[in-house]
């Protein structure tokens, strides 16, 4: 199968319906298993006791907030350079999902901060820059919805997203560049991760679940995006009337 066919809006719309449904159900099951693993099976931390378990939401959400952003910028870049229509839609639909993940990371981080740092919020570099990431997402969404011509809008917002990539390394390395309250890298280190394997495995698993969830939601949203753009086109009317 060639790329241009997969990149075709109609092809995507008509062939992913069941896939997204299946993925939706699948994440649901995976998620419950993960919660069980993280909350009951994994051992409690010798320092933080039970409160650390929110890590199983916080860390994957935080990772995804960065990952989705990069995905959004890259697809945006592809749509600008190679004028692939489907990429335009994928790129812009990433923004709200990424914003949710960022929000989850922020909220879970705050909840986690209370028992460990004694406060919900401190103005340190990582926390602030994660907040800025949220604003970046919001900026992308705001810019997109300010345009009436949505194709134009995607082009412009992709540009904003791409330029915004510079913030990603700043968020990631902020803990190293500034000595902050926030945990340094304990998983994403090149040498041995400084976390016990019995805690690490459910974390990685949750990361996987979040990824599947992301893909499921993305496909759903992209379908909606395709529908909104193509609802007046002939193939869409034909397809829907069937």
């Amino acid at each position, binding site marked *: 199968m060639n790329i241009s066919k997969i990149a075709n809006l109609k092809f995507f719309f008509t062939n992913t319906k069941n896939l997204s449904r299946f993925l939706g159900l699948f994440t649901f099951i995976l998620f419950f298993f993960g919660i069980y693993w993280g909350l009951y099976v994994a051992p409690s931390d010798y320092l933080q006791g039970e409160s650390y378990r929110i890590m199983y939401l916080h860390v994957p959400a935080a990772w995804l907030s960065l990952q989705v952003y990069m995905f959004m910028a890259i697809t945006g870049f592809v749509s600008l350079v190679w004028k692939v229509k489907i990429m335009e839609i994928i790129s812009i639909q990433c923004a709200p999902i990424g914003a949710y993940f960022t929000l989850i990371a922020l909220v879970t981080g705050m909840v986690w901060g209370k028992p460990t740092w004694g406060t919900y919020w*401190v103005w340190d570099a990582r926390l*602030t820059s994660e907040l800025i990431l949220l604003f970046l997402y919001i900026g992308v969404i*705001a810019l997109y919805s300010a345009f009436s011509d949505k194709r134009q809008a995607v082009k412009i917002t992709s540009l904003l997203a791409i330029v915004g990539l510079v913030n990603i390394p700043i968020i990631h390395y902020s803990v190293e560049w500034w000595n902050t309250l926030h945990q340094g890298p304990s998983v994403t280190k090149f040498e041995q991760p400084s976390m016990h394997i019995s805690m690490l495995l459910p974390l990685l698993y949750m990361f996987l679940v979040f990824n599947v969830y992301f893909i499921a939601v993305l496909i759903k949203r992209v379908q909606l995006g395709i529908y909104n753009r193509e609802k007046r086109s002939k193939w869409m009317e034909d397809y829907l009337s069937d």
Partner: protein
Amino acid sequence: MLRKIIYKEFKSYFRNLNSIFLPLIFFFLIISIFPLLIGPDKNLLNKIIPGIVWITVIFTTLLSSSNFFKDEYNNGFIETYLTSETSLELILFLKIILCWIFTCLPIIFFIPIVSIFFDIPLKNSFVILFTLIIGSPILVSIGIFGSSLTLGIPKNNVLVPVITLPFYIPILIFSASAIESVSSGLPYEMQLYILTALLCFVLPIMPYLLKYTLTLSINN
């Protein structure tokens, strides 16, 4: 007829669905910039947070009023207003109110949340809220007045703030003094009364003033 006008204004604001959230996000951005700039010292921050809230409101009003009539001037709408039998004063009054609703009101709504964030005592946060509710419409009217004065002038982005900020100062003084008073346990009602009096003075007069400046700038 007025309903139509209000409806249309709303529509043109809401065309960009999110325009009502923008001042809010701007507000949060500014608030989160301050700790970066002056350090994360919680004590310091708490002391100056009412000031920061006010500064943000000032900037939002400046940003949204500095070109308030520009589009309407360029596309000839001002002339249409002036040749319409509808009372221009009324239209202008509406425009002031709507501008306030779309720029300051969202911020005011979020003061309680900000208060929680920065551990501001309930009573203080009430006073901050009051000063904002009373003071911000005055700021908006003054900003709009400034923009009407500079209609014919190109590159007036910084000019409008420069001519309007001096007028902001009295309002700031009273608001700051009210906030200061409440946090040191002194009576603060007086300042609120003065602010209210200012509001009652400025708001009814402003439409007439604006109409006059608009007529002048069309007649230049």
